[in-house]
């Protein structure tokens, strides 16, 4: 249980300045902290700085309560899953796993027992005697994971540790990692590209973009109240649909992409006439129209693309200059070119200031409540 | 105070490094640097028969050498020798290493054959070559005889002697270069070849675009070493030609040896050694400056 604190941390490489710029964040002891962001935004770099593998160009890094900028990596007492695994090619899986334990002067037998235990958890038992090059990609990744887990260090850094595993195994590993982390009170910093991992594993998520923090918060809050269009489109898959809009004070309507008009029902928002705003709607809020729906809240679209994912169907249509997507649960027989009526309510809009990107209106909480007697809206 | 502390902390690397370097440094100081300084010191003296400095003559030894046609000839022979042996030796060794790097049955046997010359001392192999070069009973002249070609005075003709010594030297060094290059080849990640094959790259294309660049640290090493070794060739000269005929194979180190061990002229021997040292130093610096830029490290 150790705190990790970054104060004004920046990082530049020879060929690229400010890969990370002025990051301020405190990761609480025992927290599961998820780091997401587009490829190349500096996630790995940040982990590597915390691990002590990369010099901190500017700012202060504190581990526990100690300034750690100059602390050598070997004395930070943390473990890490490298994005590219970094397995020792000359050691067997077993030796790779127990490599760090040896340093801690653990007894050989104990090491073996530990390795066995972890290997079992990760389904590596049969492969303990092999060299990494005799393993499949996913197996290698699991070895990397095992190596990080087995040490039970107070801080653990994982860089996309499940990217090469299949969905089933990944689901299993997700819960195992979470369980372990809780049990041992590990402070976890976890990089992922997987939406499910990001949403379900973390106590908090941090979204990074071009080396700058976009938002930090609980997963569900970030999903519901993205701080800016970038976050809005980054979290959630398919991403939130965005379109420029203008407010017509007379009719009290939003003119979205000059294509549809949505009436504004509340006055909680200070909108100037003609102010440039961007509205966002999550694909799942573009719902099919049922017979008893309000005619006003619906509009018709022409389908430009359809993907059936099995348990849900995603289709696209044009909204002004951007392509919007709607996600409907279940399998829908939709063909490209179909004209579909789609329901959309003002409540589900997130509204951003186009200039600053600031969130001006949150989408109204769409939580459902289930009760024994049935389901309320 | 704190800045000093910071420095102390930052210099931890340097201080630990000293520990690792210490054994080498001590041994080098005692067995290389000290004698080297002594050599430099002696190069400014005329020495007596026991090899002690007797008369300080300043740069006279150097001046004498510079004016001496014999020494100039030595330099020329040395440079020629280096040019004859180094490129061909490395290319041949590379060729063998590439062959022996194929995954075939019994390849271990061939590898041993190729590296075998490393197992034979310069003295022993020189004796063998002496036999083969022998104008009356040697293999080479017999072969020439078989094809009705004119006999060659391999080691006796000033035109041929340096070439002949070079041939035998290339042979002697090939095992070693082979071994080093083979080691380098084996460290190249197989995946790169796989990837290149997928791209449709043929053997020579792979050789040029992958093998050679990835081998560059090893090549750089072997070229440097071969250059240095070639400049310092001695043993085979002593046995094969003793610097003759007509000084045509009187390489510098042999000349140093003769000055020091036969003529007991340590002053001029030392001066030659110093000059040789400077030459190799310059060549090596050039090699590092020009060569290491092209070397790819991981």
């Amino acid at each position, binding site marked *: 249980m150790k705190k990790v604190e970054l104060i004004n941390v920046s990082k530049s490489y020879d060929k690229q300045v400010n890969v990370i710029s002025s990051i301020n964040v405190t990761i609480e002891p025992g927290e599961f902290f998820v780091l997401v962001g587009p490829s190349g935004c500096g996630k790995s770099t940040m982990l590597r700085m915390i691990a002590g*593998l990369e010099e901190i160009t500017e700012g202060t890094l504190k581990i526990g309560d100690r300034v750690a900028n100059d602390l050598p*990596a*070997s004395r930070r007492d943390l*473990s890490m899953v*490298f994005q590219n695994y*970094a397995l020792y090619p*000359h050691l067997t899986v077993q030796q790779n796993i127990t*490599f*760090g334990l040896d340093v801690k002067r653990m007894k050989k037998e104990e090491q073996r027992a530990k390795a066995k235990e972890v290997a079992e958890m990760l389904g590596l038992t049969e492969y303990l005697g092999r060299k990494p*090059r005799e393993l499949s990609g996913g197996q*290698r990744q699991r070895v990397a994971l095992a190596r990080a887990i087995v040490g039970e260090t107070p801080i653990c850094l994982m860089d996309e540790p499940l990217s090469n595993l299949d969905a089933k195994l990944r689901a299993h590993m997700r819960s195992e990692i979470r369980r372990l982390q809780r049990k041992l009170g590990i402070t976890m910093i976890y990089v992922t590209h997987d939406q499910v991992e990001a949403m379900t594993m973390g106590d908090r998520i941090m979204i990074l973009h071009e080396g700058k923090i976009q938002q930090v918060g609980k997963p569900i809050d970030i999903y519901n109240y993205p701080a800016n269009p970038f976050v809005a489109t980054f979290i959630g898959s398919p991403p939130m649909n965005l379109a420029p809009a203008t407010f017509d004070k007379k009719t009290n309507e939003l003119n979205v992409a000059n294509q549809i008009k949505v009436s504004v029902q509340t006055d909680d928002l200070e909108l100037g006439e003609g102010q440039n705003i961007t509205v966002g709607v999550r694909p799942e809020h573009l719902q099919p129209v049922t017979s008893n729906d309000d005619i006003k809240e619906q509009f018709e679209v022409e389908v430009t693309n359809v993907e059936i994912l099995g348990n849900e169907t995603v289709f696209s249509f044009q909204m002004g200059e951007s392509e919007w997507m709607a996600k409907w649960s279940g399998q829908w027989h939709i063909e490209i070119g179909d004209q579909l009526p789609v329901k959309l309510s003002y409540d589900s809009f997130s509204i951003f200031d186009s200039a600053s990107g600031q969130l001006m209106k949150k989408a109204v909480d769409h939580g459902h409540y289930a009760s024994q007697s049935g389901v309320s809206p | 105070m704190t800045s000093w502390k910071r420095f102390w902390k930052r210099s931890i690397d340097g201080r630990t*490094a000293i520990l690792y370097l210490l*054994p*080498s440094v*001590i*041994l080098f100081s*005692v*067995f*290389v640097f000290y*004698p*080297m300084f*002594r050599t430099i010191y002696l190069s400014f003296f005329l020495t007596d028969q026991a090899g002690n400095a007797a008369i300080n003559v300043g740069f006279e030894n150097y001046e004498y050498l510079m004016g001496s046609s014999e020494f100039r000839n030595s330099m020329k022979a040395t440079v020629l020798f280096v040019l004859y042996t180094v490129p061909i030796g490395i290319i041949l060794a590379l060729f063998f290493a590439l062959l022996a790097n194929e995954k*075939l049955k019994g*390849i*271990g046997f061939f590898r041993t*054959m190729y*590296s*075998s010359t*490393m*197992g*034979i*001392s310069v*003295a*022993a192999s020189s*004796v*063998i*070559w002496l*036999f083969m070069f*022998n104008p*009356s*009973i040697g*293999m080479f002249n017999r072969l020439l005889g078989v094809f009705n070609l004119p006999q060659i005075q391999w080691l006796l003709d000033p035109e041929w002697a340096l070439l002949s010594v070079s041939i035998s030297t290339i042979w002697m060094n*090939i095992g070693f270069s082979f*071994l080093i290059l083979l080691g380098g080849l084996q460290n190249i*990640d197989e995946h790169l070849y796989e990837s290149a094959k997928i791209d449709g790259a043929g053997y020579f294309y792979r050789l040029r675009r992958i093998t050679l660049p990835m081998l560059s*640290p090893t090549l*750089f090493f072997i070229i*440097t070493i071969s250059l*240095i070794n070639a400049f*310092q060739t*001695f043993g085979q000269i002593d046995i094969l030609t003793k610097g003759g005929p007509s000084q045509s194979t009187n390489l510098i*180190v042999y000349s*140093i*040896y003769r000055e020091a061990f036969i003529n007991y002229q340590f002053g001029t021997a*030392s001066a030659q050694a110093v000059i040789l*040292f400077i030459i*190799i130093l310059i060549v*090596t610096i050039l090699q*590092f400056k020009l060569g290491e830029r092209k070397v790819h*490290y991981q």
Partner: protein
Amino acid sequence: MRTSLPQKIWLYFLLIVTSAFVFFPVAYAFMISFMTGPEIIQGKFFPESFNFDNYIKVFSRLPLLNYLLNSFIVSLSVMVGQLVVCSLAAYAFVFFKFKGRDFIFFLFISTMMIPWEATMIPNVFTIRKLDWFNTYQGLTLPFFALAFGTFLLRQHFLTIPKELHEASQIAGLSRFKFFWKVVLPISKTSLVTLGAYGFLTTWNMYLWPLLITTNQSVRTVQIGLKQLQSQEIATEWGVVMAGVIVVIIPTLLLLFIGQKQLQKGLSQGALK
């Protein structure tokens, strides 16, 4: 990856022809070792009969087993010493960052440029002052530090992916442990190469052991070989070659074993 049949035939052809060329002189020496004086002088390639007279002479003339043993002890010590000293130094040059690193490295390299012949006499005096004549340490210690070896290992260490260093740091390995548990095992090919080099050059060394031994107690085989030759009196080449062959055999064996080791270290595979 896989080679087709015509390719294989072509490869084997090249292998056989070139290796035969390389090996020819050794084979020739082997043949000579069975010949009598006149046979040799007449320059035959095949002896009339394979009798072991020359070998018997070699063994009876010299305490060859004694010499061989000494050679083994000396070569082995130098080999181990070089591996230790050079790998330590090379490690420092690659995995430590410190001021003047390149300069010190170049200083090391520069020691290769000093002709050994020029430093020998002062070294003999040094050994005498240390009273190390006729001792194993006198025969071995001066060779422990080897710029060549340091250079060789440095070149190899430089190719070690830096991820491994990082992973080890994360695992909390000390510098030395990393050196011992990762760097050395991964560099097996180079260590084997350097080991073979160290062993063989020491095995083949002549002048130094001669200069600092005055009796047979720690003398090595190369001096023995020299004792078989004579200058003014006609040399019995058959006997000399028999000696050469006897001395080569252990080194060839060593090379063969080294090869096997090298083969094992073959392409370690990627980290990912």
